[in-house]
């Protein structure tokens, strides 16, 4: 690529009459990304390169190497040249749909062409790093136009902790009674006793939990016996009375 542009440069020197020719090329090596080897970029014919000051506007297209060069590489579009550029300070841009290129400052002087990076939004006198001439442009990245819509994803659904908790609970609802059934009856009784000691009777059955009395600070025993009994506590006495009531209703 370098060699080619140098040859072009030599040709330019012979042709220059009254104004200058600014030459350069788009580097087809993809933006560096770790060690991965990426294929060379190919540039579309729709790419336009502009050189602009307040008084001049130049536009050119990517050059195709002469077709006589037989290698397939030669048909790649990459070089460009602005002919008959007069002295001055210009902004060089690449209009490319696919890639994003840096904006360069090109100063065409009496004897030489100087190229700098620019800092957008800064005074024109603030120049960035000096760049080689012929202008060498490397894409800084791929242009992103779209926003990806987040669709429905089963896998993502299962990453949701709420869903996992509810699924776990659901499984437990089915599995726990089975476990209880398989338990040794004595062990079960022990467990029930343990539970009755540790947990206040009102809280053992959330289905019939009397929120009002709980919030009012009434203990289950002092509240209306009927409701406490109805609340089917698993405490020994409670269950006794409940059985009694039920039986009496049966009669």
């Amino acid at each position: 690529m370098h060699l080619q542009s140098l040859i072009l440069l030599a040709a330019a020197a012979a042709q220059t009459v009254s104004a200058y020719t600014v030459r350069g090329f788009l580097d087809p090596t993809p933006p560096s990304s770790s060690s991965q080897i990426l294929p060379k970029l190919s540039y579309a014919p729709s790419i336009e390169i502009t050189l602009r000051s307040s008084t001049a506007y130049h536009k050119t297209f990517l050059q195709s190497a002469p077709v006589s060069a037989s290698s397939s590489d030669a048909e790649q579009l990459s070089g460009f040249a602005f002919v008959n550029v007069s002295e001055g300070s210009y902004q060089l841009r690449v209009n490319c749909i696919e890639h994003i290129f840096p904006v360069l400052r090109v100063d065409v002087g009496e004897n030489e062409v100087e190229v700098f990076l620019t800092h957008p939004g800064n005074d024109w006198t603030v120049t960035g790093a000096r760049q080689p001439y012929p202008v060498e442009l490397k894409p800084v990245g791929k242009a992103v136009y779209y926003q990806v819509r987040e669709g429905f994803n089963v896998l993502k659904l299962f990453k949701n902790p709420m869903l996992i908790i509810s699924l776990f609970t659901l499984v437990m609802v089915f599995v726990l009674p089975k476990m209880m059934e398989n338990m040794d009856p004595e062990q079960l009784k022990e467990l029930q006793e343990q539970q009755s000691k540790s947990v206040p009777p009102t809280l053992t059955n959330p289905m019939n939990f009397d929120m009002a009395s709980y919030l009012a600070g009434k203990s289950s025993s002092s509240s209306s016996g009927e409701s406490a009994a109805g609340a089917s506590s698993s405490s020994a006495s409670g269950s006794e009375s409940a059985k009694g009531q039920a039986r009496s209703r049966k009669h």
Partner: protein
Amino acid sequence: MLRSPVLLLLSLVSFVCTAVALFNDDAFVIDWHKPAIGSLTPSRLLLSPTSLTALSDSAILAAIDPLSGDFLWRHSLTHSAIAQDAVLTRLDDSSVLVAAASPTDPAITHIAVFVELNGGLLWESNLAIGAPISVTVGSRDAFVLASDGVLVRLRHLSGRLSWQYQLPTGYSPVAASYVESLSAIAIVVRSQQSGLGYITVDINSGESTSDFIRLDTLPAAVGVTVVSSDLLAWTLPAAPDSIKLGSLFDGSSKGVISASKSYSSYELSAHGNTLTATFVSSDGKSGWVQVYKLNPSLELIKTSEVSATASIYASSGSDELFEFQDATFGGFSLSDPLVRLFGPTDVEDLPSLSSIEFVKCSSSACLVGDIYSEYTYVNSTGKVWARDESTVGATASLFVDLEEEGEESAIGDVLFEEHASPVEAYVHRLSRHIRALNDLPAYLVSFVKRFISGNYDAAPETYSGSVTIGDTFGFRKLIILATPRGGLRALDTANGGARVWKVDNVLSGEPIVGLALEDRGAAGKSIKVIGSFGKVATVSVTGTVVEISKLDRLGLGDKIEKIVSLPPAGEDEQETLAVWTAHGEFLVVGTEPSKPLFLSKVVDNTVKGYIYEKGSVTETYTFSLPTANYKISSVSARDPKDVSVSIGRVLGDRSVLYKYLNPHLLAVTAVDPSTSSAAVFLLDSASGRLLYSGFHDGEVVDTDAGVKVVMGENWVVYSYWSEKVARGEKLVVLDLYESDIKDERWSKSLGNFSSFVNTPAPYVQSQAYLFPNHITTLAVTRSRFGITNRDIIAALDTNMIVELPKRLLDARRPVNRDPSNEEKEEGLMRYEPLIIDDRRSVISHVRQVIGTQVVECAPALLESTVLVFSHGVDLFFTRVTPSQPFDVLSKSFNKGQLVTTILALGVGVRLVGPMVRRKQIKARWGSS
């Protein structure tokens, strides 16, 4: 204006939304793009069986795939070439050469060589030799003859200048041809003294090898064409029926072709020893062929009217002759007698013979261009493809709202029921409902279909059946474009911009100045087409010309310049449609308005105000620019259809800044090329009062590019390119408020706002931004009720169209500090002078929209959505939602998921229900 504080709140809420990019699944679905290049001219068209390359009249060079008619590549050469002064030739098998006069300096010829296959540039060069006249190729190099009498030889690989030859004075160049046997270029020249002749120039030395060799004593020869490398043809205006032939080898006469009838045009092509002359008769409706043998002397072999029916003939330049009849295409071999190769093949949509503008043929196919800029490519099997290039440079465009489904019939019924007696109305209604039951099965089927697909915004299937029925959300509209050749094209926004109908030559030859929509209520809508010489056509929405009338008040020799569409002056009144004429007359088309009209227009670099009353227009004021060096660059007024729902802007502390909402506000921008500066003026266009002025002196503004301006509700945004301080495009916003004091509203105390009351000047807040690209056109979105935010749509010189939220360009953004909590509530961000080059704001995404001149916005039925349409060269359409699609379900809404969830829950309840019940019972019984 303020309907309720709720709306104010709503607009505040809508502030919070920020613009985000186009969704990947919306791209290519909601938008469409029609690439175009514009009208073609046969002389700038290269056709071979495998390629088609053209430089259009709009200076776009394009390679078209002859199989599909799609563009392989396009290059807009508007910066370097004047198409009308251009020559396109093939340099070798793989490359084409464009030589054209430069638009910046007509004395410079710009020459560029492109590879036909991939559009790559091989070389280009600028030569100060005048406009190009003729290009000929010899020993692989290009020889360019230009109007300064200069012939140059350019090397085919590098474009390097080998030599330059200057014609002696007194000879003006006409054409150039490479004569291989002489190894020289014959420059055909004419001179007042010597007549028509040629001079030969050696291709190696660049020296002339002969003096003037005379071909004709009269210099007035017309139609001078190089038929083959050493054969020249011309006619004399006195005897148009005899076409003279001369040799560029020895200057001898090669005979005369006598046209057997009078013709309007002819074409000669030589191949081997055969010369074919194809003529088109003077009425343009038929043609004939004369075939000659060239050597030893010109001899007529055949004068053929190959078929008895009217036909037009075209030669391929080699052995084939093609014949066009009404709707058929046939081919012959140029032997004696003519042998039919194929056909006549039926070709659909072939233009009628009288409307064919040109036919250009390769050995196997022809490109037929008609006078309305439509191009059909035909081969022996029939039509291969057709391109409509008529919409390039459209003179006017119009959005036509379509009726909602069933609206038409329902209106009449409802009106009847409203006015009839209750019993009658009830019976009518009942019978209507019974009648409607007929449609129930179809409705159910469509309902289920829509339910399954979940696609409510898609085009209903009735589209093909009816032109005038829109969709539920108002995304389907018709776009009417007035073509530069006096036709109309109606495009369907919903079906990828498909052409719904076309009418050519609406005003019988008159160019169209403007279009307006006439809404006659129950009688439906129609389109008024106004021509430059006063013809007014009424065209129905379905594309039939209803009537053509003439504006009788148009003075003799006067011309219509511009049409004006004014909003209704009062209730029960219609829009006023009027025209400005070249003589400064103001004529109302249709009903006269009841109230005086205040008008303004740009005349001779000034803004003039007028009052129109009782049929006459009186000048009221003239606004001149500060110095004579200033030139008006652009003018913008607020779209009269744009509505404001909130009259104020609620600040973070719940106080209100009242917007300056003056319907007569006019923004005028000007540039001063002598000092490279720009200026902006805000006027009251009714009174001519200057409300604000801003100057950009010492910024080295690109005055050729000018200033672009657009006006929204109470703000003006303009852009220009300048070198200082930071180089690039500047985007300036001016926000206008009634007062800088919060909660102060003088327009209320005045009762009725009037331009002629000396009101305080608006309080203008402004901020400037640096925009990364050059803006060529600005527009503003307009939603149906004006609740949705307004976005700015800008067309860029990078062939993109971007959407910028006005919220981003807010003059209240705090500078050099972070926004306070109150300002954050207002939705203000810290001021950043640079707008970053975010491609996610590009609504045209990967499409290359070339040559945008006009961007138009129209509201959909949905408040959230605005339809955006751009034209110029390419046509591009999309829809945008400046405040997000708040009134439509998002595409990510998954109906299937919702239904499954509900079903799953139902199943769950069924399963768990008995268990819970059992458990409860067990618990109550205390059994375990």
